[in-house]
């Protein structure tokens, strides 16, 4: 590490259990963040600040004015720009010691298994069920740890998945809810600080995992309600018959449930 | 002495007594985990009693400054020489018998006032080994007060505010400060009262409700057929922490605790410093009249 890196990370390096070795592990890590929206902004920012050596941001969408109540990596001048590109630039300004790449491609069930190869971890910041299941199944097959998060209205959820070891998203939710049951954030509304909370939790779990430290959301779904500010950890179990991580992998693409106009993929 | 100094300066902290031992004494609480001397001083200023042994201290520089160890690589100054210290006790000054040094965590304004009372302080500081060296070792060596602006470690990990510095002095120096405080209160109570125009409306009406009229910097009234003046003292955060009650009495008097007497010519100034919340509430007026009446009954004219 150069003196700038040493100074930059010194406050986390003096934490008990977190030291040079852990920092070097972060530096060597390559993390995919799917979605550069409400979850992707805080998650990728904290990954970048902590010193994750290489971050790849997946998002094909463009910045809209209505994103700016929660997606803090963008300025009003950037409305219309590709999000992944704008975010990658901003993150490298914030931490010039790391590398951030923009991948402005749509993640689908067909390409996820190829696109997500070779990462140390995936932080999922999409709220589209089609992409979420694609990312989950790809992570399970590729054996890549996945840090799931979701937020809508006043509720947030997070869960950490270590393939072959802990329950995956599909173990807990084998099928997406029927169309119309879950409103997307475009219909339901979302507060920036709530997605910020969830994104920060995903990043914290990912950082601790990458550093080689124990993590708290294995086999557990964290359910946050900010109206009562309650944090509840629900135990979840691996399922032997899970089509993603069980005995036998069965490809099961999920239809995009969002029928409301505009782009199909939406970040929370 | 401590209560008077705190009340006068409106200090949020206890004065801290520091006592060095050449053998580890029995019967004092030791820290539950390692820390820094400057951090233990801050805890003592908030009321704790802590005995620090070499193994409790994680700052090597303070071990050298406090005389636990001789320096190994360079002549670090100021430090206690020879290095015969085995333990250091820190506690609110009233809880320590014969402290070697007394410390006061202070704001620049408080240091200014102390300096004027002492006829000046020649401070010597470098921002290095500060609470341990500059505020303890230096006054021990010279016998004179010193002001330290703390060091990087104390600022980062000691729990001090940016607006705070530390005065270290032999106990006699603080006794002189306490005498000056008493003298000032005797001759000029006005110095320690807030201007009533700066007080919250709530406090003024609370005192009016208790039967005390507003003066420029005090409230006045009659209790038990005696004149009484009430002064309010703000702490640095603006909270009103202390109420000073004065009864001017002609002729000789005998009083009971917590009352004290200062002679003012033919008059005796009988006064007590009370802490808000102890039997009365300055913000609601509740209990004020009763507390003052109770005090007035402790005055016996002889």
């Amino acid at each position, binding site marked *: *590490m150069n*003196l700038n890196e*040493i*100074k930059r*990370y*010194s406050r986390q*390096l*003096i934490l008990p259990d977190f*030291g*040079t*070795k852990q*920092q*070097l592990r972060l530096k060597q890590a390559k993390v995919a963040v799917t979605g550069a929206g409400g979850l992707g902004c805080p998650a990728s920012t904290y990954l970048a600040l902590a010193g994750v050596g290489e971050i790849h941001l997946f998002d094909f969408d463009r910045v809209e004015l209505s994103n700016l109540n929660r997606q803090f990596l963008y300025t009003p001048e950037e409305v219309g720009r590709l999000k992944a590109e704008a975010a990658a630039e901003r993150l490298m300004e914030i931490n010039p010691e790391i590398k951030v790449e923009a991948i402005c491609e749509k993640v689908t069930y067909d390409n996820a298994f190829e696109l997500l190869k070779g990462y140390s971890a995936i932080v999922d910041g999409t709220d589209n069920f089609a992409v979420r299941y694609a990312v989950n199944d790809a992570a399970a097959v590729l054996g890549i740890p996945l840090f799931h998060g979701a937020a809508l209205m006043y509720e947030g959820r997070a869960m950490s998945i270590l393939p072959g070891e802990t329950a995956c998203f599909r173990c807990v939710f084998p099928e997406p809810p029927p169309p119309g049951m879950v409103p997307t954030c475009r219909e339901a509304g979302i507060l920036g600080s709530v997605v910020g909370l969830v994104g920060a939790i995903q990043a914290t779990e990912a950082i601790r995992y990458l550093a080689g430290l124990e993590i708290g959301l294995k086999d557990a779904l964290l359910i946050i309600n900010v109206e009562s500010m309650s944090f509840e950890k629900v135990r979840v179990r691996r399922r032997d018959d899970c089509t993603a991580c069980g005995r036998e992998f069965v490809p099961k693409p999920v239809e995009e449930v969002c029928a409301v106009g505009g782009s199909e993929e939406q970040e929370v | 002495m401590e209560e008077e100094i705190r009340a006068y300066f409106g200090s949020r902290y206890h004065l801290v007594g520091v006592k060095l031992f050449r053998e580890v004494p029995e019967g004092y609480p030791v820290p539950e985990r390692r820390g820094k001397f400057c951090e233990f001083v801050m805890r003592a200023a908030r009321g704790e009693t802590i005995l620090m042994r070499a193994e409790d201290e994680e*700052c*090597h*520089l303070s071990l*050298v400054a406090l005389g636990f160890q001789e*320096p*190994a*690589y*360079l002549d*670090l100054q100021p430090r206690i020489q020879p290095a015969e210290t085995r333990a250091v006790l820190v506690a609110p000054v009233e809880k320590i018998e014969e402290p070697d040094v007394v410390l006061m965590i202070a704001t620049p304004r408080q240091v200014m006032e102390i300096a004027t009372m002492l006829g000046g302080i020649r401070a010597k500081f470098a*921002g*290095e*080994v500060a609470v341990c060296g500059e505020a303890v070792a230096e006054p021990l060596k010279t016998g004179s007060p010193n002001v330290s602006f703390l*060091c*990087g*470690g104390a600022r*980062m*990990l000691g729990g001090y505010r940016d607006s705070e510095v530390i005065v270290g002095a032999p106990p006699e120096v603080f006794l002189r400060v306490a005498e000056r405080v008493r003298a000032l209160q005797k001759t000029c109570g006005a110095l320690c009262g807030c201007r009533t125009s700066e007080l919250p409306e709530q406090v003024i009406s609370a005192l009016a409700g208790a039967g005390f009229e507003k003066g420029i910097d005090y409230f006045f009234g009659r209790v038990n057929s005696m004149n009484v003046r009430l002064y309010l003292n703000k702490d640095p955060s603006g909270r009103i922490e202390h109420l000073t009650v004065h009864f001017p009495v002609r002729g000789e008097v005998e009083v009971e605790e917590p009352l004290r007497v200062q002679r003012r010519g033919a008059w005796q100034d009988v006064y007590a410093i009370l802490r808000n919340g102890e039997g009365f509430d300055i913000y609601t007026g509740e209990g004020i009249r009763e507390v003052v009446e109770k005090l007035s009954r402790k005055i016996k004219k002889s």
Partner: protein
Amino acid sequence: MEVLDLRGERCPDTFVYTKIKAEEMGYAGGGELKVIVDYPPAVESIPRSLEEEGRGYVVREIKKLDERTYEIYISVPKFED
């Protein structure tokens, strides 16, 4: 020889930065480290704190360059963990 120029830094940062650099070197196989400081108390605290780490660091030499500037020469062993 790796050089860590800490002129302008104070305690406890001087030690924190030295520790991080030394650990990184330890994980990379060990080697010689020169630390330059212009905060005299660090000359006293860095060697002691390194010793306390229990990593087998050896302070080889302390050179005084001028009234406030010192060089501390440290041998960093290879870490096994």
